[in-house]
């Protein structure tokens, strides 16, 4: 046998690549479970004599998830959404059926309004609103010719969906249930790995002055994405059996991952600035950082927490040795130590949560190491303007499709209106819906062709339920393996649902070619109308929402510095972190013209909140200086708002002078050591320290130009 030729080597590589994409055992199992549930639902719906048993089948594919809890929650949301949409259809259709214009107006207004409501809820429960948005046209429009039948139709559809959900939940709970706990455990590990990789990369490269590893920046972005993923996960978890502790732990972890973002970013900036000073990073501090990096990189062990506590202790004593001085270097050094301490605390908590997750329950006496800041994890940032715009836009296109239907007098045009509403709603929350809609149109068309083949070539040969199951199995099993993959989920879902619908599986085989073509054309035309409308009304790219996010960040900062929002500090912090999590993926995808990584704003925001809170506790002269800083800060962000986003604004010298003066005033307050028994004086000193840290942070994130980057501009 000769040596491998390049051709065969290439072939082997191809084959390896292909094999890597083959569904794994877990995916086949999920697919088989889903198919079994789907056929069960189909059988029950047939036996119950329902008119459209394929809806039960399609519903199973819509709600099925590898996690039992997620299947349940989605099933519940689907039931609620269907019942709301169906009830409104039953109420309204008989009243408005003689006034096509009024009916069109109502349907489009309903769709837009419910879609807007779904935007306000960024968790999986928004499916309730989204589904009711297009269930109304789905039930009302096919019935305009026989409005007296709408109740029967609505009840039948609700029953079909209920059967589908019951079967999906039953099968997913009974047959090898996908417990959330092991998955969550694995995810906890992955999330902490992302955080740890960022922290370790930063500690190593920043301390030694090595060029920054691009992978470090990537972990930062992944961490922001992890925070968002955790939210989705938590809301599914609530529907898993025996998960109250898991939900609590996930919330705690989510908060800490969120706080790691500003902590690490601030640490990185402080160390970089410190390195650029003549004295550089002191050897003791660098040794400390290496030790912390090694501790974070080490896998979790029984002594992780003990070592963490010791590291924290050592940082404290190290900080006390440099407490006396007031030069910028000393402030920086103290700042680095403070942030290191925060990092160690957060990491201790993360590891503790991971350990408790593995044990399966929250230890009753667990006290978190990190207790500096808390924020509510339920608060979100909403871009109401954009959301309103896309909801109104969907309303308009639905009305437009209705008008087209009425004007042309096309008997199956109702199907086009429905598909138009569905296609618009599905993707309305995205920055750029058009590409996804195009893919949807493509998949839809593909399904209709598959449906055509199935309906007229394969199904005629299937005479009983058993043979039908056999005929459907290959296609649905294959699609089912794709549903579990994020990249294919939407496509596979559309495929299975449209396929089931277009096959029109009913108790009697009724292949009417004319009917099939008519409804297929309506379906494709409907989604094409939605696509065209999107291209016409939303030509702007993802950068628009990026610009709007940045502007609302600055508006919030200006308002905070001016002393508003202070009644709800937790909410404010949560909104800032949520906005950052939305901002980071968009910044990563953009060209970086905005001159910010989003993190600096978050640090400024947290510091501003702290300054505002401490203002009342400071002695009068210091409070005056801090107030002056806040005024200048508010002015800075107000002026930033007046300029275009892509034109960075250098902070005014005034702000720099005021920060320097405030630091000079505060330093003696923080460094005079009070008598040990004077509790009030000690508290005052601690407050002054906090304020000093916040001022250092402001100076660091706003006023200190980043020293020359070894690798060029940061991403």
């Amino acid at each position, binding site marked *: 046998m000769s040596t491998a030729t390049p051709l065969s080597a290439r072939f082997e590589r191809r084959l390896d690549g292909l094999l890597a994409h083959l569904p794994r055992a877990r995916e086949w199992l999920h697919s088989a479970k889903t198919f079994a549930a789907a056929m069960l639902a189909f059988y029950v719906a047939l036996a119950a004599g329902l008119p459209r048993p394929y809806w039960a089948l399609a519903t199973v594919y819509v709600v099925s998830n590898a996690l*039992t809890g997620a299947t349940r929650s989605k099933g519940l949301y689907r039931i609620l959404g269907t019942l709301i949409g169906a009830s409104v259809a039953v109420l309204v259709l008989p009243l408005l059926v003689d006034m096509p214009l009024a009916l069109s107006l109502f349907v489009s207004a309903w769709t837009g309004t419910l879609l807007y409501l779904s935007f306000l809820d960024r968790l999986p429960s928004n499916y309730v609103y989204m589904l009711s948005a297009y269930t109304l046209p789905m039930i009302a429009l096919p019935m305009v010719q026989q409005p007296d039948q709408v109740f029967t139709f609505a009840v039948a559809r609700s029953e079909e969906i209920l059967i589908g959900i019951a079967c999906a939940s*039953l099968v997913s*709970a*009974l047959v090898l*249930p996908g417990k959330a706990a092991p998955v969550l455990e694995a995810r906890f590990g992955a999330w902490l790995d992302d955080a740890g990789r960022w922290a370790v990369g930063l500690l190593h490269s920043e301390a030694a002055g090595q060029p920054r590893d691009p992978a470090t920046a990537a972990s930062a972005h992944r961490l922001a994405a992890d925070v968002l993923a955790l939210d989705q996960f938590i809301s599914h978890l609530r529907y898993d*059996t*025996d998960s109250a502790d898991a939900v609590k732990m996930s919330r705690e972890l989510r908060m800490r991952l969120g706080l790691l973002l500003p902590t690490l970013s601030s640490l990185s900036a402080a160390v970089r600035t410190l390195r650029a000073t003549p004295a550089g990073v002191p050897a003791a501090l660098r040794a400390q950082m290496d030790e912390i990096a090694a501790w974070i990189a080490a896998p979790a062990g029984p002594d992780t927490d003990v070592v963490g506590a010791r590291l924290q202790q050592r940082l404290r004593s190290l900080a006390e040795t440099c407490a006396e001085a007031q030069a910028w270097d000393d402030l920086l050094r103290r700042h680095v130590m403070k942030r290191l301490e925060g990092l160690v605390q957060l990491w201790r908590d993360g590891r503790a949560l991971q350990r408790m997750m593995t044990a399966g329950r929250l230890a009753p006496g667990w006290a978190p190491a990190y207790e500096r800041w808390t924020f509510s994890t339920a608060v979100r940032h909403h871009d109401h303007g954009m959301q309103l715009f896309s909801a109104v836009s969907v309303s308009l296109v639905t009305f437009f499709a209705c008008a087209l239907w009425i004007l042309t007098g096309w008997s199956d045009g109702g199907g086009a209106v429905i598909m138009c509403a569905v296609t618009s709603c599905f993707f309305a929350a995205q920055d750029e819906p058009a590409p996804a809609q195009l893919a949807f149109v493509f998949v839809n068309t593909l399904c209709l062709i598959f449906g055509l083949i199935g309906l007229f070539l394969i199904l005629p040969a299937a005479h009983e339920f058993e043979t039908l199951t056999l005929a459907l199995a290959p296609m649905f099993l294959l699609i089912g393996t794709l549903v579990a993959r994020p990249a294919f989920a939407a496509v596979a879902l559309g495929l299975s649902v449209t396929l089931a619908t277009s096959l029109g599986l009913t108790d009697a085989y009724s292949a009417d070619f004319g009917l099939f073509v008519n409804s297929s054309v309506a379906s494709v035309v409907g989604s094409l109308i939605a696509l065209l409308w999107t291209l016409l009304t939303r030509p702007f790219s993802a950068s628009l929402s990026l610009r709007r996010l940045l502007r609302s960040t600055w508006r919030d900062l200006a308002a905070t510095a001016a002393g508003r929002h202070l009644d709800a500090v937790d909410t404010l912090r949560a909104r800032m972190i949520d906005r950052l999590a939305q901002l980071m993926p968009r910044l990563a995808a953009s060209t970086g013209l905005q001159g910010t990584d989003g993190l600096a704003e978050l640090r400024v925001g947290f510091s501003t909140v702290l300054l505002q809170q401490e203002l009342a506790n400071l002695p009068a002269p210091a409070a005056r200086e801090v107030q002056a800083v806040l005024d200048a800060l508010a002015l800075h962000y107000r002026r930033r708002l007046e300029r275009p986003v892509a034109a960075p604004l250098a902070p005014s010298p005034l702000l720099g002078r005021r920060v320097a003066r405030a630091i000079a005033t505060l330093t003696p307050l923080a460094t005079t050591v009070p008598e040990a028994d004077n509790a009030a004086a000690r508290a005052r000193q601690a407050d002054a320290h906090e304020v000093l840290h916040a001022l250092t942070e402001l100076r660091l994130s706003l006023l200190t130009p980043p020293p020359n980057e070894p690798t060029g501009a940061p991403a």
Partner: protein
Amino acid sequence: MIGDLTLYGVYLPALALPIALAYVLVAGLRWLLGRAGAYRWIWHRSLFNVSLYVIALYAMVRWTAGWMS
């Protein structure tokens, strides 16, 4: 026991009442078992719950059949 229930003029299948009663009963039982920590000794929680429900449903059908017919 096959027949319809009438609830303010709305006809419901006769099975609806035992179904609802059994659900309430099982919800209570599940809560009690959870409080007692019994689920830690049960291998397949969902299967156990479904079986419990079937037993409860049977009991409720037998019980209601007595006074509904």
